[in-house]
C-alpha cells in the first residue's frame, strides 16, 4: 500500500516536472499502473485476511487497469502528435513525423 502511494505520488511529481506532453505521458502511464495494482492487491489481501472474502471484482479491476492503461497512453500520444504539439527533442529527429510524411507522399502518388 505504501509502495503504491509512493509510485502514484512520484508520477504526480513527474507530471508537474517534465517539460513536454510525451515525457509527461511516460510518467503518467507506467507508474500509476503499478501503484493502483499494488493498492488493489492490498485491498484484496485485506478482505481475504480479515473476512475470508475472495473478491473477484478487485482482480477484474487489476486486470482491466493492466490492459487499459497502455491503450489510453497510446491514444493520448497519437492525439498529442496530431494536435501539433512539438516534442522536446534535443538530439534526435521526430521519426513518427518523417514516417507519416513519406506515407502521405506515397498516397499522393
Amino acid at each position: 500500500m505504501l509502495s503504491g502511494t509512493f509510485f502514484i505520488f512520484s508520477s504526480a511529481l513527474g507530471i508537474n516536472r517534465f517539460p513536454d506532453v510525451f515525457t509527461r505521458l511516460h510518467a503518467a502511464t507506467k507508474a500509476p499502473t503499478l501503484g493502483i495494482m499494488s493498492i488493489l492487491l492490498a485491498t484484496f489481501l485485506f478482505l481475504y485476511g480479515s473476512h475470508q472474502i475472495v473478491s473477484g471484482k478487485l482482480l477484474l479491476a487489476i486486470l482491466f487497469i493492466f490492459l487499459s492503461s497502455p491503450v489510453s497512453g497510446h491514444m493520448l500520444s497519437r492525439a498529442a502528435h496530431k494536435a501539433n504539439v512539438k516534442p522536446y527533442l534535443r538530439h534526435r529527429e521526430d521519426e513518427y513525423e518523417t514516417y507519416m510524411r513519406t506515407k502521405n507522399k506515397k498516397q499522393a502518388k
Partner: protein
Amino acid sequence: MIDVLHVVEHILYITTLICITGIALSLILLIYRVLVGPSNPDRATALDVIGVCLMATAALTSILLATTKLNDVILLIGILSFIGTLALAKYLEMGVIIDRDSD
C-alpha cells in the same frame, strides 16, 4: 495473541491514513496540471491520472470501512475513466471514433 492482532490493526489504520494523505497531495498536483497545463493533451493526461487516483481513494476507503460494497465502485470508475480518456483523445485528434487507417 489478541495484543498482536490489535497492534496489526493499528499499524494498518496508520498506514491507510498516510496513503490517503499522499494521494490527496498528488491530486492537488494533478489539479494544478489540469488548470495550468500548457496544452490540451496535458490536461487529458492529468485527467486520466486523476481517475486512477479516484480508484485508489475508493480502495483505501473500503479498507478503512472494511466493506466489500465499494468494489463495484472501483471497477466502474476504472471503466468510465478509460472510456473518457479514449473519447478525449479522439476529440483532440479531431478524428472519427473507429478508423481503418490505424498507425
